[in-house]
């Protein structure tokens, strides 16, 4: 009797464990997939943000001349400096290196999550290896930019470390050692890259809202100066332009990418903490909560950045 009870209890426990493990597998896969999506959308948002800086400068240059007929339009100004009409204020090569740095972090996080997963690590297919190989020379790219780009040198060390580690993570077939190496060598390098990206973004962040606000106040001044000389239709057109600029200003404030970097850092810390944990249900719950917070934040900022991107394109037509 006692033996039968013991067998029943063992079967029940085995069934329960399987059910819990199955549940954990599903629960782990879902937040990691959404984390990947959030990293990808963050990289796209930052790319849109950086590329809009050059467009906003060109637009500001033309807007200023629309308001002030004394100012001529040219490719080089009277002081001999290239104008933003055809010259990019921010170097496309420097900006591209930063988008690639963000995508490299996404790839690192993906591989880390594969290694830390409940299942055996996902088999790396050739396409994923190719993506990894694309970043192998990113450290050298930053190194070459260091002559003209003030902060590029600070990326060289940590980017080289992550890119090198990523190669080892693909080659390494012993999961435990690969995970240990990824955590010991990679985690601080990822933090270093995120710190530098955050500093770069924080430096540039005030520029776009201020540029749009300057155009807004320019339009307001023009309206106030001409309102008694124009008919209702002309006044309505000016007021529409003021409203559009006020809305773009709101969107520029809401799409501050510094918060994206902060979200990415918190999500990465949660992933590292999970990889070091015993993978208990509470560890998974903590990871899921952190990744969901990042996803939600990334979605809000991506929405605002998209709105700003569309409004800027509209304004440029």
């Amino acid at each position, binding site marked *: 009797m006692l033996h039968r009870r013991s067998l029943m209890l063992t079967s029940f426990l085995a069934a329960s464990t399987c059910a819990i493990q199955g549940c954990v597998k599903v629960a782990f896969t879902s937040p990691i997939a959404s984390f990947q999506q959030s990293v990808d959308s963050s990289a796209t948002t930052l790319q849109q943000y950086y590329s809009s800086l050059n467009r906003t*400068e060109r637009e500001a240059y033309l807007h*200023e001349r629309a308001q002030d007929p004394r100012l001529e339009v040219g490719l080089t100004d009277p002081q001999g400096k290239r104008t933003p009409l055809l010259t990019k*204020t*921010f*170097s496309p090569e*420097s900006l591209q290196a930063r988008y690639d740095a963000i995508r490299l972090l996404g790839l690192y996080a993906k591989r880390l999550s594969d290694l830390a997963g409940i299942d055996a690590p996902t088999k790396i297919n050739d396409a994923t290896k190719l993506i990894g190989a694309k970043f192998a020379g990113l450290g050298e790219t930053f190194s070459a930019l260091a*002559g*003209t*780009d*003030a*902060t590029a040198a600070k990326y060289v060390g940590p980017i080289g470390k992550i890119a090198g580690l990523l190669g080892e993570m693909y080659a390494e077939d012993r999961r435990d050692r690969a995970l240990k190496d990824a955590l010991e060598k990679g985690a601080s390098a990822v933090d270093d890259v995120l710190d530098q990206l955050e500093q*770069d973004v924080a*430096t*540039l962040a*005030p*520029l776009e809202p*201020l*540029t749009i*606000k*300057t155009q807004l*106040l*320019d339009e*307001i*001044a023009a309206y*106030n*100066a001409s309102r008694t000389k124009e008919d209702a239709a002309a006044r309505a057109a000016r007021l529409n332009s003021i409203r559009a600029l006020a809305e773009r200003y709101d969107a520029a404030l809401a799409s501050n990418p510094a918060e994206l970097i902060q979200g990415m850092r918190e999500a990465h810390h949660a992933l590292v903490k999970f990889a070091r944990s015993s993978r208990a249900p509470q560890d998974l719950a903590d990871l899921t909560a952190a990744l969901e917070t990042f996803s939600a934040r990334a979605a809000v900022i991506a929405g605002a950045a998209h709105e700003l991107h569309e409004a800027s394109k509209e304004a440029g037509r």
Partner: protein
Amino acid sequence: MNERIDSVGLAGLIDRLLDLSGDLRLSPAERAECLAAAKRLRGYLLNLLTARFNQGTPRLLEANAALTSVNADLKAAAQQLQKLAATLESVAKLVGILDDLLRLASSFL
């Protein structure tokens, strides 16, 4: 070669000047003066944001000290508008300092 302009202070100053240029308690001439100063400073911000200077560059120290002081004055002037004229003179002096500083900048993003 790693010293920088106080870009947060400069951006804050431009923002305050833009707010004042839309403040209908000011005369049209005062508003125009604030807007012109804001536009000039925005041009400097664009160029100085990523510029680096040698440590202890006297003009940079002077610019950062002037930025702190002008920002404080402008904040006070926004509360007591009769102080605005004197503060706008300080802004004009700051523009001169930044103009010099720009010639010393070394590298940009």
